[in-house]
């Protein structure tokens, strides 16, 4: 089947959205993929999925994003989706200190279930609620540095830094991937070694599709 123009891309990156319930993961996703924000959004049950194709470092990248339910008990189903993800957006709510305190538990989840070289970005969401802020930017920044994560603050409501956060993590993934394929002497942007289905050269005929490896 011939691929339609809007489906052409150089790379396919799988990214997961994680973090406590209610921090705004689903709204960050809808802001990024559809430019929508919903004050009346439903809590996520299980996992949701959306994609967007965009330009990253001059390449066409398709971001395939899995949004997970934040409540702890749901990890029984959601953690399967970490596998094969190249990036993780770990979200907390700047107005709720507990959601920031739980970041370390989420990191542990990733360590237990995700690939070890996964790129992680810490996101403090809901910066529009200035009068309710309870987690200082510096604290989160310091924590991120200590843990080796990139860090950004966003507002899904006001569409502040949402685009930038996704751009940043996708660019970071791209840099790691392209370095890898250089060092392994592969011609052009093909898949990385050992049958990881995650990165896809768009020009190939039987492009291997999604990279969701959960079974």
């Amino acid at each position: 089947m011939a691929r339609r123009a809007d489906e052409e891309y150089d790379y396919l990156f799988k990214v997961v959205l994680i973090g406590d319930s209610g921090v705004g993961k689903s709204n960050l996703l809808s802001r990024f993929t559809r430019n929508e924000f919903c004050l009346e959004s439903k809590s996520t049950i299980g996992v949701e999925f959306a994609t967007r194709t965009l330009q990253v470092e001059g390449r066409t990248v398709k971001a395939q994003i899995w949004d997970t339910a934040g409540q702890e008990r749901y990890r029984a189903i959601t953690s399967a989706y970490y596998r094969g993800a190249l990036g993780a957006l770990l979200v907390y709510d700047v107005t709720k200190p507990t959601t920031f305190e739980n970041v370390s538990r989420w990191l542990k989840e990733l360590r237990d279930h995700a690939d070890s070289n996964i790129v992680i970005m810490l996101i403090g969401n809901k910066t529009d609620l200035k009068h309710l802020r309870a987690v200082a930017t510096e604290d989160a920044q310091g924590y991120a540095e200590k843990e080796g994560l990139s860090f950004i603050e966003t507002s899904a409501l006001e569409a502040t830094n949402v685009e930038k956060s996704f751009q940043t993590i996708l660019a970071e993934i791209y840099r790691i991937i392209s370095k890898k394929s250089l060092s392994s002497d592969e011609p052009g942007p093909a898949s990385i070694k050992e049958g990881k289905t995650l990165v896809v050269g768009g020009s190939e005929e039987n492009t291997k599709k999604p990279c969701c490896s959960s079974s």
Partner: protein
Amino acid sequence: MAKKRIDDYEPGPVPPPAPLDRFGFVKRELSYSHDGSMKERSAYEYEREERRVRKWRKMIGVGGSDWTYYVKRKPHVVKRRIRKGIPDCLRGLIWQLISGSRDLLLMNPGVYEQLVIYETSASELDIIRDISRTFPSHVFFRQRHGPGQRSLYNVLKAYSVFDREVGYVQGMGFLAGLMLLYMSEEDAFWLLVALLKGAVHAPMEGLYLVGLPLVQQYLFQFDNLAREYLPKLGEHFTQEMINPSMYASQWFITVFSYSFPFHLALRIWDVFLYEGVQIVFKVGLALLKYCHDDLIKLPFEKLIYALRNFPEDAMDPDTLLPMAYSIKVSKRLEELKQDYEKKNQKLVQSTEFNEKQQQSQERFLSSKRS
């Protein structure tokens, strides 16, 4: 006692009036309406509806007095009528009769009140966080801290105290919300108890316990059933690496109340309460079958989208449900359950669990169910 309770809040502003459908959901322009009332109901249909209600009233008797007798004598008549849909005005009452929740209520006077007023729950904040994210487009639940949200909070909090092992889990709010549109808080609470504890059918609590064991089992069973029933589609799913946890978890966790058209969800609930969880499998299979020829052509992403957004004609209860009824699943479900249990030998763990749980609930129940 400075505990934060939702009752301490002033109700928020009443949301601006918006056009509502027959069930009280805000009408959305582009999507399907919840009541499926695209077509005007004709005079003939009204008459038919009236005749149905009269039949049903006869079946119930005064205050439900004839019901048990009727169900014993003519279970197949009851089953047939329920499959055609319970009249909306009698739904709340019938649901309580067929689920066994009314008996629980009568056996345990005062228990609900005690749970709501005197007990505190570790899940209170979790519940509050989700209240405004449960049926946000329904007029009853839209007003912040309004009567709908308060009732929802009370029922969920009461349950989380009643069964601390389950507590509160995202998704339970949709069950409680659906019930509250048809009955009082206390009735809804006991219906929740009847379902999760298995008053009539298999207990549902495993959908919400740590590890979500029953979700995992149901997904395993559904995956296998779908592959056996629709082998070509199953093959396509394998190729595209699609598995049911990507689209069907919420079917089981909320019994289709999370994102399906409301009029369809109600019809499924009618049958679900009388016949049990099998109907969820049957409806799921019927959906796949109905859309089979389209689904089989779609690549991964479009496939996921299609599995989460079935077309309107597929969700017409009068087409979908007869198709679902014609699918036989009970024998295979039982076999697959045993396969699953063999795969996961965790029986020891779960019995320990149940014992602990029993103790925590016996405090509240005056007499145990038979």
